[in-house]
């Protein structure tokens, strides 16, 4: 195959990955790394580099739309970015220490977990907890629109959320992904923020988290510009289209089908890693 055809095939696949990532809310990175490794037989570290670049693009590209809706919370985001960026430094450092096969296995597990969270029905929690003193002192609160009114919320379990965010950052740096599923876990389950606030703030944070690993990735030569080019452009196009479709269509059944694909990729990554093929 010539370089031109390879790049075009990669571009097409990346559009699909970005679309899938947006439809499932998991981001393009979790699809593009297995696609590059398993389908295109690209070296894992090059795949991580290309994915990280596309993650920064989709997070930043979607931010403007989320901000307009008024759900994301920049204070909570910025505060937790201290944890995710530190974690990302550790994760990026570990990519050179941990073998590719182990990275593949961890990647597969994260894929399976992410797939599970995206089909798992989210249950609304009654907001009858008393305000968390630490969260109040750190001003980790805000309002969000509910049926035209402004509803108040205050974060809880701040230290636990901070710890989970450090883990999310480590996974992001180690796997070249946004690890949105883990970020949502920290804000939704630990801090008990409204779900919409958690998902939009998570997206807001992904770009900064990924930027913290980008320096390492660049200086280690993981980012091949000519390989990252079709991936970044494709994922960006796919995710923009995906979020538009998501906004206008009820897509429950398609979503479940996509999640099955993601789970299958997860199992294949674990298999390939465990048998030493990565």
């Amino acid at each position: 195959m010539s370089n031109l055809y390879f790049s075009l095939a990669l571009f097409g696949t990346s559009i699909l990955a970005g679309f899938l990532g947006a439809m499932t809310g998991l981001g393009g990175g979790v699809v593009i790394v297995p696609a590059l490794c398993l389908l295109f037989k690209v070296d894992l570290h090059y795949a991580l580099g290309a994915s990280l670049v596309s993650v920064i693009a989709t997070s930043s590209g979607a931010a403007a739309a989320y901000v307009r809706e008024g759900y994301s919370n920049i204070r909570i985001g910025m505060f937790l970015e201290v944890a995710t960026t530190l974690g990302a430094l550790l994760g990026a450092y570990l990519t050179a220490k941990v073998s590719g096969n182990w990275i593949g296995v961890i990647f597969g597990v994260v894929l399976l977990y992410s797939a599970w969270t995206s089909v798992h029905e989210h249950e609304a929690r009654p907001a009858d907890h008393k305000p968390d003193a630490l969260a109040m002192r750190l001003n980790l609160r805000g309002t969000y629109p509910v049926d035209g009114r402004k509803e108040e919320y205050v974060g809880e379990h701040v230290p636990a959320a901070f710890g989970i965010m450090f883990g999310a950052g480590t996974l992001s740096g180690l796997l070249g992904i946004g690890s949105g599923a883990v970020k949502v876990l920290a804000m939704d389950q630990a801090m008990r923020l409204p779900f919409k606030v958690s998902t939009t703030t998570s997206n807001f944070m992904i770009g900064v988290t990924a930027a913290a690993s980008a320096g390492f990735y660049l200086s280690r030569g993981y980012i091949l510009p000519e390989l990252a080019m079709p991936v970044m452009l494709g994922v960006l196009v796919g995710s923009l289209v995906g979020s538009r479709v998501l906004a206008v269509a009820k897509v429950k059944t398609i979503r479940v089908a996509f999640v099955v694909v993601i789970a299958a990729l997860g199992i294949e990554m674990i298999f390939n890693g465990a048998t030493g093929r990565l």
Partner: protein
Amino acid sequence: MAEGSDHKLEMAMGRMLQIGVTVAALVVLAGGILYLKQFGGAMPDYRHFHGAPAGLVSVHGILSGLMHFDTPSVIAFGILLLIATPICRVIFGVVGFALLRDRFYAGVSAVVLGILLFSFFLRR
């Protein structure tokens, strides 16, 4: 009132991110077209890890490649613009929170900025 200014800062950040991504994507696209015109034939080896060429692993190297109109450097420059976009957002945070007289969050943003710059200027 405070909330209104918060939202303004958020909107400014969102707008900045959008512009940054658009510019970066256009540079990457332009570099990509030039690159494929030049090197569209032979398939590079992506199967085995060799690391990116020496000129493409540092900001300095990429900028000097750009001066020589080396097409992979043009793409890499677009990628640098992309990486700079969220970093700019954090700078917006430092300045924006300072203007809102929120010292604590101006400080938090400065810490995040420090970590980002540390990651970038650290050589290994």
